[in-house]
């Protein structure tokens, strides 16, 4: 119970409850939702009434209620879709880094994954969980039932950082195990020794077979250069023997090199129709999600 509250605090739920994850692609399924599904109206479940606002579709006005109350209400329905989604969380050693006074990247990634799982299951999507660090692991198969959310939370809570495995192998395994037209949300710092080549290729393969692939890049301000640390002997947690005596705060090229790396990675991902979403751990989780959803809505 504690873990669940930790992941989904009431404030976060309050903020995220009105949000809808807008898919870019039309998902074919059994149930219609507010997505641009051709099967809208079949099997939809009434959820609640709300005040009519300008722009609302008049087809959903509740005329009987208007006759009784002399006020305009529209009916809202819970969405139902057959979207199969995977949350892929990076649990490698580098995700343990927290920066000064903040949460670790893995913790922040877990927040994001939990919030997204909540939203997607609430929207009727089947959500699975996979992680990579010491090794690529498929933790939970996608399911849409409410009780599955609890299993997701528990598995996210149990994730321990360690190892140097990349996401590419895990993404390829997902491509073979999930139906086409699914959604893969990768939450990672996207730091790979090969400059992200294998990751871009694997994500491209998923995208090519019709899946929606989203890469949420999690980074601390210390790593991005926004709050570069003072002098020290630095090492990559995934390569602890390689120490670099440096003064990042005085290194004017540090932030530029980090930005260039991620800009290159983002370009290559977008070329393969993979959505790249940079997120900073300094940013509130709900704020990051709202910003992202608003960008998607255009």
């Amino acid at each position, binding site marked *: 119970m504690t873990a669940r509250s930790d992941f989904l605090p009431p404030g976060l739920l309050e903020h995220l409850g009105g949000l809808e994850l807008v898919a870019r692609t039309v998902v074919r399924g059994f149930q219609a939702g507010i997505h641009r599904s051709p099967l809208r109206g079949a099997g939809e479940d009434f959820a609640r009434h709300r005040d009519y606002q300008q722009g609302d579709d008049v087809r959903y006005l509740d005329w009987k209620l208007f006759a009784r109350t002399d006020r305009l209400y529209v009916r809202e329905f819970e969405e139902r879709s057959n979207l199969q989604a995977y949350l892929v969380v990076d649990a490698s050693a580098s995700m343990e880094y927290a920066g000064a006074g903040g949460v670790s990247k893995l913790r922040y990634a877990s927040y994001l994954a939990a919030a997204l799982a909540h939203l997607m299951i609430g929207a009727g999507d089947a959500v699975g969980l996979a992680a990579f660090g010491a090794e690529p692991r498929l933790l939970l198969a996608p399911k849409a039932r409410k009780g599955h959310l609890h299993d997701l939370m528990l598995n996210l809570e149990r994730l321990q950082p360690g190892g140097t495995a990349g996401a590419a192998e895990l993404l390829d395994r997902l491509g073979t195990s999930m139906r086409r037209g699914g959604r893969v949300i990768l939450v990672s710092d996207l730091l790979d020794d090969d400059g992200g080549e294998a990751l871009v290729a694997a994500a491209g393969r998923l995208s090519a077979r019709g899946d929606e692939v989203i890469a949420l890049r999690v980074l601390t301000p210390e790593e991005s250069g926004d709050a570069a640390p003072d*002098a*020290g*002997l630095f090492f*990559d947690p995934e390569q602890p023997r390689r120490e*670099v*005596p*440096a003064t990042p705060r005085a290194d004017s*090229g540090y932030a530029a090199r*980090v930005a260039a790396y991620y800009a290159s990675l983002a370009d290559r991902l977008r070329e393969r129709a993979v959505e790249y979403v940079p997120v900073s751990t300094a940013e509130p989780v709900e704020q990051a999600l709202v910003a992202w959803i608003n960008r998607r809505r255009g």
Partner: protein
Amino acid sequence: MLTFGSPAFLLAGALAALVPLALHLIRRRPPSRAPLPTARFLSLDPRTSVRVSRPTDLLLLALRMLLLVLAAAAFARPVWRPAARGTASVVLLDRGAAMGGGDAWPRAVSAARQRLLGPRGEVLGTLVLFDSAATVVPPSHVAPTLFDSLAAARPTGGSSRYAVALRAIPAAVGGLREADSVRVALVSRPRWNAWSDGMGPLRRAVWPGAIELVELPDLDAGDSDIIADNVKAKEAIYFANALDRLSYAKPALAATGWRVRSAAASADAVLDSARLIVVAAAVPASAEAGLRRAAEAGATLLVTAPAAASLRGIIPWAGAMRVDSGGGGMWLASGPHVSGAGMRVSGDAARGASVIASWDDGRPAAAARRLGRGCVVFAATELERGEMTLDAEYPRLLDGLARGCEAADGASSIDRNAPLDAGARAVLRGTGARVVAARTVPGWGGGVPLGRWALAAALLAALAETFFAYARRRAV
């Protein structure tokens, strides 16, 4: 004005404070090891180490330097004094009966005035008027009119006590805290009747420096038979068979004011002029009558152990008179203690005689008895033998023995009115500087000592340093 008792500690503290400063400037810490997943994007810092300096470092440096300086300042014994007024004076003015006669009293008041009033009438110190009691006149009451009224008055007629005057010195000095040095003067006509036992230790205890003796002249000869008799009292005959053995006692007596002559035992002619006759060796039987006659006429006959057998009929001593080696230490009733007597003669004081000295074991060492107008003293040891002749108190021992009957039956009016001899004057004067720096006066200091406050501030600095050092470690 801030003064320091040991200013060298300030220099030491300043040098010590440079040590943390130097360490702060030269210290270069190796950089701390820290994870950073994006370390691959860092450019190498050409420096192998970096000097990490935080604001707390400067605070710690300041606290450490302050701690050392304050500790050194505490050791330097800082004292805050009001503006110093140079050298102040304490004048002990004798107003006893001895100051009567002639113009002694006006001259004494004038001498005190000279020392306590400056050329423009400014007050230079404190006046102590004493006879058998002392009155401290504080500087605020010292004025020309005071001396005018004193000069117009007469001495009190009481007996003077130097002990009383000496004990008043600390109180008198205590009223002179604004001065940076003090001197003490005693204006008196030094007489034995103002003296008392234990004057030496008392004198050393009350004042660390010398005391200026402003001696007023004695009355003219003829004014008193006492004085004429005292002149005679300074004559001494050292009476021995072997004159060349008198190498210790003669100069010792001379040091205490006696004019010593040596004579053969048969020189009866010289006995009449002697106040003291020291018999240091056995004398022929024919000499006994002359010595008895001289004693009856007023002389003091000091007989030592080697002459005991030849003068058995005169000396105030009884018993077997067996000679033992190793006399040990001798205590004189008037105070002096002399160690290292070479031998002793057993026995006890004869009937009618008084013990005036004892051995360390309590047995009698000397006795005295009146004989006519004079006195016979027997010392149960040999005054020219043993290490006692090297003792600093040896002259006072001889002088005390020479005054044996005074100690035995109390001071006779004649001798107690005699002027102090040179030894007693030396005791009164004391040793050391005539002007004493205020900081050397025991229990005075002449200001507010700040050493303990400096030490307390140093402790606070140490606590603050500990706190900030701990906070810094936590921050790192």
